[in-house]
């Protein structure tokens, strides 16, 4: 079953075509990687899916719902979460609070609930806090919960960002270069972690990554973008041998 389908998606900035008529079909439960040189349009594609950019043409269908024209918060509520290339946490909020914000679209209480401390709100807050503790444990951040996010070391920040994304109970998780700045051991752990959330939580994962060991190691399908166009798609093996891919990465003549 296809959970996310992109149909001829095009995004332009002035005269620059950042994403040009890209088709993608992401099967449910897969780990789907998008690779390509810098400026190939990978992050732009993420921003189209999450509603921050509105594509000029094409359709984006998530589990039968068209995403084009929806606001980012509506898309998040549908079950799409993301992390960022350069970590973007809520710095002056604690780790637990970051995770609680991640749960926002799964919680309901509003002004009245907070002002009058309604029983329903208190129960909901209690459950949200329980869940935040579970997620803290799940990503291995127990004991760091009350620290401001900006005081955490880099590796912990990455994990917290993942926990925050998972807090929204997404069905599709978009990871933008999760292995950036990691050493080989940390990268290894990250790969195991990505597999684990796919298997245990049943998530579909869409991944942008530069580290070829990660891409080749965990992807079910790899799509290659170059100058906004999809130049090839297939299993890691197929993509590795494709001459157009080698050309895009290494230049003409290398193939």
């Amino acid at each position: 079953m296809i959970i996310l389908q992109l149909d001829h998606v095009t995004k332009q900035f002035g005269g620059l075509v950042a994403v040009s008529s890209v088709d993608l079909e992401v099967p449910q439960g897969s780990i789907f990687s998008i690779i390509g040189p810098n400026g190939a349009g990978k992050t732009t594609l993420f921003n189209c899916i999450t509603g921050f950019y509105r594509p000029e043409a094409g359709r984006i269908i998530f589990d039968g719902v068209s995403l084009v024209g929806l606001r980012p918060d509506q898309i998040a509520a549908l079950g799409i979460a993301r992390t960022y290339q350069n970590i973007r946490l809520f710095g002056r909020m604690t780790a637990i609070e970051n995770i609680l914000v991640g749960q926002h679209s799964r919680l309901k209480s509003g002004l009245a609930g907070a002002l009058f401390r309604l029983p329903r709100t208190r129960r909901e807050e209690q459950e949200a806090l329980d869940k935040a503790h579970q997620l803290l444990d799940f990503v291995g951040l127990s004991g760091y919960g009350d620290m401001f996010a900006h005081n955490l070391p880099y590796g912990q920040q990455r994990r917290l960002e993942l926990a925050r994304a998972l807090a929204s109970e997404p069905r599709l998780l978009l990871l933008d270069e999760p292995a950036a700045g990691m050493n080989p051991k940390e990268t290894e752990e990250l790969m195991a972690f990505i597999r684990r959330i796919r298997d245990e939580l049943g998530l579909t994962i869409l991944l942008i990554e530069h580290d070829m060991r990660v891409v080749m190691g965990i992807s079910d399908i790899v799509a290659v973008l170059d100058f906004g166009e999809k130049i090839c798609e297939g299993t890691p093996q197929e993509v590795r041998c494709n001459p157009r891919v080698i050309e895009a990465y290494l230049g003409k003549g290398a193939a």
Partner: protein
Amino acid sequence: MGLRTGIRMGLIAAIVTIFLILIGVHMLMGRLLQSWFRVPAHWPGVWLMVVLLGMWAGSRAVGQMKARSWGNALLAGASAGIIQGALVGAALYLLASITQAGVDLRTWLNQMSKESIGALTLGFAPLPAAGFIGGVLLVSALAGAAWRERRLRVRAARLARGERMISLREHLLEIPAISQVSNNPLSRRVLIGVFMVLLLIAPFFLGQYWNYNLGTVGIYVILGLGLNIVVGMAGLLDLGYVAFFAVGAYTMALLTAPQPHHIQMSFWLALPIGIVLAAVAGILLGIPVLRMRGDYLAIVTLGFGEIIRILSKSDVLTGFTGGPRGVRNVGHPVLFGKDIGNEFYFFYFILIGVILAIIITRRLEHSRVGRAWRAMREDEKVSQAMGIYTLKYKLMAFAMGAALAGLSGAIFASRNSFTGPEDFVLLVSINVLALVIVGGMGSIPGVILGAFVLKGLPEMLRELEDYRVLVFGALLVVMMIVRPQGLWPASRVQLERPRPELAEEVEAPAELAEGEVGS
């Protein structure tokens, strides 16, 4: 090394000292000490200022050196003191001899009266007087340098022993009585109870003047807590906050006063209407304005604030708003047939408003709504990606902030029995913003402290007359340099439950938390 920093600091200190003397601040200190501590003469205050300035020069010179050695420290202190002393002494010699020659310096410097210079010469001839002030400055600078050097050494020793630097708050918590109160919810409640009782009986002892002033502080606390929601929590810089204060005040005034509308509604009915109308105004202003960000938002809200004020005094609307002359005879609250519209009752009334505002802020802060606001403040784009409909939450923040402003505006108009366009100048918005920043953004005790410092302190500084604004401005500048996070910054919530199996891991974060001290 010590010599160079000492000379540089001595020069700076000399310029500052001469400047302060020329504008007569030493006399001011003298008079202040006289009236506050009932010192019989003004010379203790004058010379206290001189000694403090000398100590400041010596201490700063030592603070700027990197290498620690007593020799260097004393050299720095001595050179700073000699330079400062020589220059200030020379200046005093000049001033004193000119005055002695019968020239009235007040023609150019209107604070340089005979008494003003006499306070520094102490009746000596110009030359010995100059020598005396120079000597005092030198000794003070040496004392300041020694004090600073010792303090830096103590601190370095603590660091070398592996003790991490601790904040003032942690210092206080080391005192058994204080840690007892802060850890034990019961004694905390007792303390709050005692404080409440003190507040409740205070108006019986304070008298009209202070009841009125404390009431004003309270009105500003409510305003500050309201703006704190908008600026401190949601991160929306609103420079037109006074508009909502005006909506609350005018609603109260127009509904209860005999002119211009003859409605003469009861205070108790007009109050909630004022709050609701202010909130509605917040939403109406918010819809067009909140699509902007940062600086743009600040400028547009500033414009809206002024528009409200100008509308209220425009000729076209005079029939409706009372125009430039404002609205007189605004209704007072009446309880059991008794007019309770004097400072004494208003004190309690405002106190209730403040408590209400505190409860509202506290409950919102750590709710789903408050978290959404703070997430928006930290990173608007990411908060959207987390499912927060930012436009809705911005409007909620605007409406809540405006409602509190409406409450304080309504009380304000009724207490003064009058309201008019001049009550709602831009300066009110700036004052409220300043008290939030000085107190500590996002922090409830900070806002209360800020209101006391910004609205209460100026009352205490009445003796300063013309200098009030100067001293006040200087205080603000010093504050922002020395303590940019505010007097009482917001603290973190502790939400993680201690779990026994994590006992050894918890050590690690404690070390990491160091980076946060002073940040």
